[in-house]
């Protein structure tokens, strides 16, 4: 960690006026209601998720887990460069479909969120929304250096460093970016983990929801989202 430019000034005391969009304001909704909105507040995810209870019988739970493991449905949301190596997996050469892995267009149908590399703050916000829209049990896999410790954007003002502070990560795959074969190997490992009943990321998220939210809010200033749900 040598070679830092000593000429760089560290003075960030200068106050900059808050942008207009971030100030609280009144808005008229399409049905004529006037409502106050506070952009810095997260309206969408106030309600904490619930811990998914295990089945009483181990054999039933094992069966469930086998089912979950053998149908890893990945959300087709490439958050960073790593997404490009998923394309070969979707096509005949590497053919992940034979392992029960396929890509879905909507979070409602997917149970695996791939964070394929760096997450800019703007995308992190969407990734969190997406994750919360997915149905449990759900899993997160972090791809490449960027999700582990910031990767090559370790000094960027706009990318996060430790993914596990914002989303519960079940598995990391090293590489920049990991090859399709490494991804497949990672999926196999995730399957093993699910079958053993160890992939408890979603439950962790529910249990430590406040902690995750606090971390998320420390980074994301503007929670005002485009209204996808209209």
């Amino acid at each position: 960690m040598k070679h830092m430019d000593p000429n760089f000034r560290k003075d960030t005391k200068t106050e900059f006026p808050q942008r207009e969009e971030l100030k609280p304001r009144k808005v008229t909704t399409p049905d004529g209601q006037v409502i106050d909105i506070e952009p810095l507040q997260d309206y969408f995810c106030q309600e904490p998720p619930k811990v998914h209870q295990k089945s009483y019988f181990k054999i039933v739970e094992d069966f469930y887990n086998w089912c979950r493991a053998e149908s890893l449905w990945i959300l087709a949301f490439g958050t960073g460069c790593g997404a490009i190596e998923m394309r070969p997996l979707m096509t005949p050469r590497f053919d992940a479909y034979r392992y029960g892995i396929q890509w879905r267009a909507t979070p409602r149908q997917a149970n695996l969120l791939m964070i394929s590399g760096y997450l800019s703050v703007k995308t992190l916000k969407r990734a969190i929304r997406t994750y919360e829209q997915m149905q449990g049990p759900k899993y997160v896999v972090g791809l490449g250096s960027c999700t582990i410790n910031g990767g090559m954007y370790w000094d960027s003002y706009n990318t996060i460093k430790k993914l596990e502070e914002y989303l519960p990560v079940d598995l990391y795959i090293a590489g920049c970016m990991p090859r399709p074969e490494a991804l497949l190997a990672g999926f196999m490992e995730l399957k093993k983990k699910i079958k053993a009943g160890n992939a408890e990321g979603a439950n962790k998220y529910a249990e430590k929801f406040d902690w995750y939210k606090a971390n998320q809010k420390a980074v994301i200033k503007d929670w005002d989202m485009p209204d996808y749900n209209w």
Partner: protein
Amino acid sequence: MFSFQPDRSQYPAPGPDGKLEIDLETGQYLKLWQGPNHPGMTGNMSVELTVCGDEVVEGKTHVGYLHRGFEKLMERRSFIQCFPIVCRICVPEPDFNEYCYAAAVENLAGIEVPEYANWMRTLILEMGRFNSYMMAIGGMSGALGLGVVGQWLTYVRDIMLDRFEELTGARIYHMFILPGGVRGHLPEGFKDRMEEVLKTAERYLADVDKVMFSNAVYKRRTKGVGYIDPKLFEPYGVTGPNARAGGVAKDVRKDAPYLVYDQLDFEVPTETASDIWARTNVRRRDIDVSIDLIRQILKKFPKGGEVMAEIPNVLHWKIPRGETYIKGESSRGEYGYYLVTDGSGYPRRVNVRGPSYTHAMALLELLIPGTNISDVAALMVSLHTYPPEIER
């Protein structure tokens, strides 16, 4: 639910009939967001569409989902340290960044690159262009629901990636073009293996011609859609295949030959219709040019030689004050690096001029109104944009 528009007075863009103001409260219009996850193959960006029925009356592009602040990061990395990060700006065709950055540094530092390295660079750029087009055409077919072409071309791209891997040591981010030269020689038997790839590609492309370009549905959906008036090319900074599809044979390889392009024999394909069909067709024909170029390059490739010029010790490499702009023709249009140095060991400012910057912002917003929702994805892919070039 609510909607917020910062300033209504900035409307109206005229509606489909030229009169209506867009007033969301009438219930006649609907906001529809496309993205930010990949719509087709164009990377993470979103288009905020206002639709009336299935007709889009307004579109705004939103970018920044992939912003990492490259230009800032490079200001605090030494000249050699910038080399591994520049390629990350563009995933489908990373080599162009490597070349432009290296050439800009060499230009300001006054380094003459050996002949062998120039040939190698040209080879790599053409291989990258080939790959990029494969993604573009695969994406184009995917955007119109023609999945099989995407499957084929991803395979073709993948066997080209194998050649990349063998040559450079990596599949996606090759990091082979160092400031000063390239990192190595051609491996044994590379030419033969490359010829196999090209033959396979040609076989698949012949099928693509039949399945995609002669497809009645494809033709119906692309011909006449997304027309760009050639008069808009200059004001909107349209370059590359998008301009060539409108009859302007803009190509930096011909206009201002760099590397060894002046020693190669090729024609720049053009079309006149300037619609989605024409743009895709230009890319399709450019693949043939690329294949031909790769063959020519390998045929004329120097037997051996130095791969790198003498460069100073990179750990304390300082470049005198100056500024330069280096450009080249990427698969999407004119790609350029504007590099300013101040005599220190770090770049003062790097500005990456990606073709997507102009294509995906102002131009796309201009083209979207009046199209069908289902054509928006095709329109975006036909411009062949890649968001990280916009936001970097």
